[in-house]
């Protein structure tokens, strides 16, 4: 079974520019997550989708970050405008459900450097 796909793998931008990341979850997985992983830290949840609806976006900096999952499959995460502190790895994960027993499967991540 194919895993979670993400693109691009790397991105370098200047501050105040915009950037978008794409994620394609494991086929059939209804739940999709975006995490931010700053160097030296564990991943932190930004937003969680169940199908095409938002379940939790309490940690998403909504003044500059946005995410959508219009058809309940692929998702995009956008940052506009980017700040230096947004430099991190952005991980997408998916799971078949939302229960506590569910395992989340992660993609390879997009490494963002903001100069």
């Amino acid at each position, binding site marked *: 079974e194919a895993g*979670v796909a*993400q693109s691009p*793998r790397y991105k370098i931008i200047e501050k105040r520019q915009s950037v978008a990341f794409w994620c394609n979850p494991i086929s059939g997985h209804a739940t999709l997550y975006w995490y931010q992983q700053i160097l*030296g*830290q*564990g*991943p*932190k*949840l930004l937003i*969680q989708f169940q199908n095409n609806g938002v379940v*939790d976006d309490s940690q998403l900096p909504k003044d500059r970050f946005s995410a959508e999952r219009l058809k309940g499959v692929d998702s995009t995460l956008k940052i506009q405008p980017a700040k230096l502190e947004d430099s991190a790895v952005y*991980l997408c*994960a998916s799971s078949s459900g*939302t*229960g*506590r*027993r569910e*395992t*989340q*499967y*992660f*993609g*390879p*991540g997009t*490494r963002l450097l903001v100069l």
Partner: protein
Amino acid sequence: AQSVAQPEDQVNVAEGNPLTVKCTYSVSGNPYLFWYVQYPNRGLQFLLKYITGDNLVKGSYGFEAEFNKSQTSFHLKKPSALVSDSALYFCAVRDVNTDKLIFGTGTRLQVFP
């Protein structure tokens, strides 16, 4: 608040020796615990999880973890380390109130030939 702690930033072990990567948790209620591994420039790969049942959980690549309720620990173990096991290991706990996955800060495992 639910949390996990990984007290060691780095663990060094010789190839062929047993390895242990430590994790302790703080949870109100029954814990749901996970271990993930991250190789350089790769995403997190699921190793194993504890939901209920046997305290010894077996996972991928020969890893296992022991759930100890009295010590609130969930240490990751492997009887014989390989150089290819060198990676960053994350312990995580499911927040019982929000169902979010809360990650530790990670432990870098270095296996020397």
